[in-house]
């Protein structure tokens, strides 16, 4: 882009926060993860129960199931059974209203699945296509993040970061955030959250997805036993998916409380506004210039 990396505006300055490659990969991820989650819930609905172990039929009940129970008045209520505890989840899990208003027995409701209706082959088609999108986008990100030193420079916590972790936790709990010079760097909890999601949660989710493939299971015979078997892998895949949802919820919350438009703009055009006068402006200009060269 032609504009300068650092632009002075009233009461602060604007600089290029995110590189174009990162912005593009971020939004590809948003689309892929959304479709993967919703088509995944569509696949789950074909057999809305999770197990721990080698198989689903080992003489013990599922660890989680969404089912319908008959009521005395002849209707059915949706329930979710978790580790033997039954919760009434009627209307959302187990039994929910279809778009046409009729109540139907299904794990997750229509508005959480792709496609709306119970259509296993179509959910699978969406899921496996966007699984490739996620994997290829993830590999491109890793290559870029390592080559551009994004991981080393922006994500790896520094010694100062570790020393300030207590204060950072307190700040987060009080929803107190920097909008001055410190906002130009990720804070330590943010760095750790990104590192865990990028290097643990997403790879584990993908690996547990692969563990469900009877063909990929054969690559190293018996490797799926390392996590307790194929049905355990399916359960871990499900838990990981919801942990990613939890991360996204916190991420979006933080985006909102630390300045929705400024953050959103920085992920679209790349430009991020810092309120205070730049004390170390030359250093940042150099960094911005370096990023521009990529």
């Amino acid at each position: 882009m032609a504009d300068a990396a650092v632009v002075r505006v009233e009461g602060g300055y604007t600089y290029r926060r995110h590189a174009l490659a990162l912005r593009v990969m971020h939004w590809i991820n948003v689309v892929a993860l959304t479709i993967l989650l919703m088509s995944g819930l569509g696949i789950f609905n074909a057999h809305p129960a999770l197990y721990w172990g080698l198989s689903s039929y080992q003489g013990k009940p599922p660890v989680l199931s969404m089912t319908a129970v008959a009521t005395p008045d002849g209707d059915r209520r949706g329930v979710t059974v978790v580790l033997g505890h039954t919760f009434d989840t009627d209307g959302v899990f187990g039994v929910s209203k279809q778009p046409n208003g009729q109540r139907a027995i299904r794990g997750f409701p229509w508005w959480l699945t792709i496609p709306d209706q119970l259509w296993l082959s179509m959910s699978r088609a969406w899921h496996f296509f966007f699984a490739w999108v996620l994997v290829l986008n993830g590999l491109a990100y890793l290559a870029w993040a390592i080559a551009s030193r994004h991981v080393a420079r922006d994500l790896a916590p520094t010694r100062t970061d570790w020393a300030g972790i207590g204060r950072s936790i307190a700040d987060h709990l009080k929803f107190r955030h920097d909008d001055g010079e410190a906002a130009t760097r990720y804070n330590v909890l943010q760095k750790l959250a990104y590192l865990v999601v990028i290097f643990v949660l997403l790879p584990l989710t993908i690996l547990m997805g692969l563990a469900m493939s009877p063909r990929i299971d054969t690559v190293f015979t018996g490797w799926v036993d390392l996590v307790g078997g194929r049905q355990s892998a399916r359960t871990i895949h499900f838990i990981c998916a919801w942990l990613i949802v939890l991360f996204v919820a916190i991420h979006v919350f933080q985006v909102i409380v630390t300045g929705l438009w400024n953050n959103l703009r920085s992920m679209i055009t790349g430009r991020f506004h810092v309120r205070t006068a730049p004390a170390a402006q030359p250093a940042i200009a150099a960094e911005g210039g370096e990023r521009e060269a990529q």
Partner: protein
Amino acid sequence: MKRSDRRKRRRFLARAFGLAGAGMLAGCDRLSQTSWVPSVLGAADHLSEGAAKLVARKAMAQEFAPADRSPTFRSNGTADPGTEDYQALVDDGFASYRLVVDGLVAHPRQWTLDELRAMPSRSQITRHDCVEGWSAIGQWKGARLSAILAAVQPKPEARYVVFHCADPMEADGTDLYYESIDFDDAYHEQTILAYELNGAALPVANGAPLRLRVERQLGYKHAKYVMRLELVQSFAAIGEGKGGYWEDQGYQWYAGI
């Protein structure tokens, strides 16, 4: 930038995001109904199949201990074909059953169940993974498909083995189940035509008298009530041309994931 301009731009952005989000999700649903989107999504199947062949062409499926077997092996899909012809086979204990092997082979022939039992066999305790998500473990014994193919000698142009079954998928007794596999799977050591489950004759609910075990693929590939093997160059002229009953309904032909 003027404040009102900024506000206008923000409102535009918010609407664009909202529309894009809602449009994308509603769009996924509508796009599923088109003919071109499923075929684009299906391109990923070729990628998955190619990757699997690259990393695990001849690899063996995991085998388990007798204690890992499921207490009862779940019957899914057809539990009894229910046709007159099939019932006649059940009534005489499958004595009149004949497995027909024909198509692109040098020596088409038939096998009785006793002749199949005399063929080179394999016994294996394997995990059955249904496309719905559940798994069950059972012990299977059957004739090696590779031995049957060796006896009939496929012609050079043959590429697939098609399994024609006795179970109708329509209530009026039509639309017989069928499946197909390629030669990588057909000659795989664990690919057998099973006549025993957990040490007893294969029950009707699990596909008596003969079912395919193709251990590196999902359950729907494991055709039950197998009556005839046909070797073909292409399955385009069979059924609706996708290589199997469920494939014709939109499921993947390559069911390794």
